[in-house]
């Protein structure tokens, strides 16, 4: 049964479209289509061709053709390869990571760099500390040579 058999109120209005599509659906196929498809199938590569087990003569080595023996051999090969990989993996030590990290220098937003200038913080002017004065003992005699050698000390007024 075709779906066009159902009667709907607007079927007649869309008959033109269906007629065009039917013409399209009944177009003759090009000659030799099947032959070309056959040829394409023949030329297509056969996938899944695995290297076969070598031919064995006689029943002595018939076990070699059994799927169990093939599976066991494949498992042995995989185990040998994996064992070698594990050996290498366990022997190789990872390189130590550095303790310090160099931080990237961030450029100023306007595009100019600071040219390695160091910022000096502004600090308050603290009290000026004058060198301490040593009180003289008035009873001690002044050596005239020492007075002459250090006149500034002698001229310093006492407060």
């Amino acid at each position, binding site marked *: 049964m*075709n779906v066009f058999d159902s009667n709907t109120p607007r079927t007649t209005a869309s008959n033109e*479209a269906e007629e*065009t599509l039917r013409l399209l*659906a009944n177009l003759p196929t*090009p000659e030799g*289509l099947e032959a070309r498809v056959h040829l394409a199938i023949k030329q297509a590569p056969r*996938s899944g061709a695995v*290297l076969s087990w*070598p031919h064995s003569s006689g029943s002595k080595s018939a076990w070699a053709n059994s799927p169990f023996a093939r599976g066991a051999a494949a498992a042995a090969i995989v185990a040998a390869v994996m064992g070698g990989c594990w050996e290498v993996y366990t022997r190789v030590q990872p390189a130590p990571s550095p303790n310090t990290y160099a931080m990237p220098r961030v450029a100023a937003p306007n595009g100019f760099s600071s040219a390695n200038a160091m910022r000096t913080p502004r600090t308050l002017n603290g009290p000026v500390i004058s060198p301490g004065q040593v009180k003289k003992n008035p009873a001690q005699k002044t050596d005239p040579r020492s007075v002459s050698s250090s006149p500034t000390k002698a001229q310093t007024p006492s407060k």
Partner: protein
Amino acid sequence: MSASQTYLAGWMEIAPTVREDTRQHEIEAALASMVDEYASTLYRVAYSVLRNPADAEDAVQEAFLRVLRHRDTLDEVRDHRVWLIRIVWNIVLDRKRRAKTRPETDDVSELARVLPAKGLSAEQRASAAQHHAHVLACIDQLPGKEREVLFLSAFEELSSVEIAGVLGITESSVRSRLFRARNLMAELLQHSRSLR
């Protein structure tokens, strides 16, 4: 040939067992019969969407090559015809999607040229071609889901159940989409006539 060469040749040779060989022959025979039986149907399905003979033939070949790749699952397929139409349908939709940049007007004029117009004069033939081109331009304006159902429903040999199988939807969905498609087509054709 030395002994070692003989041994190596034994490794490289593909030696299927007798049972495998027989099975391969059976599959190839089934595939060949499918080509003979369904290639023309698949071509017409592909052509209705692609509207280009070379592209349609390519799509058919690609469909059978996909079957060849999955030939081991052939026994599990219940309806080979619907299965093949589904494969080619997916291929043509994919190609149509990729070739979206191509102007639709070229497709339409090409299609109008190949449509048969037997027993018509040259003037009538030109008029018919123009009409079909106009109708196809209206079909191209339909939404994708409705357009797909309308395309497949034009094939006499496809029932609504089979269309549902091809599109992977239910039969009731096929019917409702077809109903909408017909209504939209009627509106589009009326609208285009009123503009003329």
